[in-house]
């Protein structure tokens, strides 16, 4: 056997390096390699929990102001954005024949008043006639007893007194009728006046015009809005929160609001009201959130993201949520036992906003669990813990 030459030594070394490289590639790449995983330990911590929802800016109170009768719009005095005071005239409807009817009513009222005066005069005249007839009837009765006049003449005077008395009663009744007639004319006139007042659309509150929905000359039906007024102090958010993640939703929870127009600003608020009616179609609950200090320039209908803070859980044993896995119906975690993965069932609790989950049963503080893995794990998979999988 010759001593090996330098060349054959180099060749052997090359061949060896080659085989080592081959072996390394086969065992570290592809299906034969152990699965790389990252570990973390279960530890006690403070769990901050939040609820999240998308909201729209809405006015708590919005007033739609329109006519009570169909008609044509005569004037609109305000435009959207105008501040209005309570009782301010916003718009007016075309009165059509109402003004003429008011004139007619006024004339009827005048005539009725005059008829009352004439009836009063007629009463006076009838009263005076009655008095005269009564006196002369009494005189004739006296004269008849002394036989100065005939029975015929005395009877005639008695009859004249009774007739004058009846005429007086008739005149009194006519006066009462004229007064009633005047009252009717008065009532008709004030009715027409009220109808006329109804054509003036006035603001019930101090606020801001949010919409001008009809222009002069357009015809609107009863109940249709001509102008909308909102009370800007009542702007709030209508938040939609997924039913599955709405546990703990309550009035008074502090809220953090991000408006879509100002994504870098955070506004504080709180839950003011919970709607009894959820949305069964979108499976969401609805809550109303008010701003602590209302920012200027809010637009109704603007989207916002609302994060509600639930009371934190102190000193809960927790692991990263990514470590929580499920096998069939059983929640659990993967642990490393002698270089192999093993599934350990756990009972999970609340989930925090920063991605930790409370473990109520199955782990003790300090237990290591697999958080991330490069492949799906099964019992007995060989694993290799690393810092990170990148």
């Amino acid at each position, binding site marked *: 056997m010759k001593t090996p030459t330098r*060349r*054959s030594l180099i*060749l052997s070394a090359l061949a060896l390096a*080659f*085989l080592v*490289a*081959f072996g390394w*590639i*086969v065992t570290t*790449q*592809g*299906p*034969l390699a152990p699965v790389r995983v990252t570990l973390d330990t279960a530890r006690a911590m403070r769990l901050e929990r939040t609820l*999240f*929802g*998308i909201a729209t800016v809405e006015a708590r109170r919005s007033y739609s102001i329109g006519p009570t009768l169909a008609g044509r719009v005569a004037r609109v005095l305000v435009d959207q954005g105008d501040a209005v005071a309570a009782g301010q005239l916003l718009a007016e409807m075309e009165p059509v024949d109402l003004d003429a009817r008011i004139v007619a009513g006024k004339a009827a009222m005048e005539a009725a008043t005059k008829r009352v005066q004439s009836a009063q005069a007629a009463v006076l005249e009838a009263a005076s006639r009655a008095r005269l007839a009564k006196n002369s009837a009494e005189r004739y009765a006296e004269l008849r007893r002394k036989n100065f006049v005939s029975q015929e003449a005395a009877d005639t005077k008695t009859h004249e007194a009774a007739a004058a008395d009846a005429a007086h009663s008739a005149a009194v009744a006519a006066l009462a009728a004229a007064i009633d007639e005047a009252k009717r004319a008065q009532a008709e006139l004030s009715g027409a006046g009220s109808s006329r007042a109804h054509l003036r659309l006035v603001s019930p509150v101090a606020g801001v015009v949010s919409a001008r929905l009809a222009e002069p000359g357009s*015809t609107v*039906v009863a*109940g*249709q*809005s001509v102008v909308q007024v909102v009370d800007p102090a009542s702007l709030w958010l209508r938040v939609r*929160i*997924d*039913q*599955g*993640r709405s546990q703990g939703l309550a009035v008074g929870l502090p809220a953090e609001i991000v408006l879509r127009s100002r994504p870098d600003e955070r506004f504080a608020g709180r839950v003011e009201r919970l709607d009894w009616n959820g949305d069964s*179609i*979108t499976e969401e609950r609805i809550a109303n959130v008010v701003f602590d200090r209302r920012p200027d320039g809010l637009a109704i209908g603007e989207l916002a*993201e609302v994060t509600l803070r639930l009371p934190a859980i102190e000193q809960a044993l927790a692991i*990263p*949520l*990514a470590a*929580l*896995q*499920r096998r*069939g*119906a059983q*929640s659990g975690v993967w642990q490393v036992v002698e270089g192999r993965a093993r599934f350990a069932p756990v009972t999970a609790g609340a*989930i925090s*906003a920063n*991605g930790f*989950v409370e473990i109520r049963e199955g782990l003790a503080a300090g237990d290591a669990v697999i*958080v*991330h*893995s*490069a*492949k*799906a*794990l099964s019992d007995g998979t060989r694993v290799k813990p690393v810092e*990170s*999988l*990148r």
Partner: protein
Amino acid sequence: MINLAARDVLHGWGKFLFTGIGLGLLIGATLTMAGVFRGMVDDGQVLVDNSGADLWVVQQGTLGPYAEPSSLHDDVWRGIAAIEGVAETGNAAYLTIQLTHNGHDLRVMIVGIEVDRPHRPGAPRYLTAGRPILQSHYEAIADERTGLKLGERVKIRRHDYTVVGLTRRLVSSSGDPMIFVPLKDAQEIQFLKDNDALVNERARTAANPAFNRPGVPGLLEAAQAGATQARNVNAVLVRLVPGADPAIVADEIQRWKRLTAYTRAQMEDILIAKLIATSAKQIGMFLVILAIVTAAIVAFIIYTMTLAKVREIAVLKLIGAKNRIIAGMILQQALALGVIGFLVGRIAAGLWGPAFPKYVLLLPQDAITGFVIVLTICALASSVAIRTALRIDPAEAIGG
């Protein structure tokens, strides 16, 4: 007894080694091709496994949600959840779209999943970084292939989404990486039109006398509100209680709910047999051609190597070497070439495999099969050279 083949190789080892490496690269290409096919199959498998579903309920008569479009109302799950054997349901929406992120285009499959609790069917089963989605809007889990990082914000249609988790190897059947978003966002991405279209649609509705009659206040608004609803999903994923027979439950759903349901095996068949059938045939053709080319090249190399040794073989014959020795030398060299080629090829495939845009899966059994085929080809190819060598006239050693 000295080994003639080894001696001969050592005599011109550089040339021999480079020939082996060249052959190895060719074999590496062949192995990679097989790996590409296996990777496609495995992608489908991972998609099915990772959804965590036992049944896929889709629009009646479609192969949805991956192979064909399918559309269902998002409340059919209530009826499905009531069927015996169903443990949990999860709505899912799938849509492939093109994003622009940091100036470059990104083709992704948006997957809408229910996020009200962890591990709903459809959600990724394991992560390689970050955490599952917690918010019911605007958070996303992206596959590593998208190139997105944790905490990065990516704009999808109307909104910005924050990447909170990363997955590995979750791609659609065409290799587009997945981005998981909350279902309601995915519905909006899929069904809510862009603003121009919305404005245009509103104008059309307003111009339609049927929806905008004088004297009916509110009708137009009602019609327009009804037109901008996104209340559909592409599939309902169903998890069964342990021990339930998927075929029976699927049958129940098909019969009473007027929907189509696929079991895991059927879904794998759709994803693997139907969706990638043509690609698989394409790759198969390529594999066959590569194998033929490899065989031809090996035969050619060994033949020229033998022809270069005509004189030496003639001398061997002249000094009375047996045919067996000569044949053995050529065969051994051919096999050695094959072994070197295979090792180089396997290493090369292992090194460049991860650089491919789609997953390349190099299975050990594929490597073993490849090894056997390479050695068979080498042995067959050397037979041509051996025949030539045995016909050499010993006289060539001295004359010629």
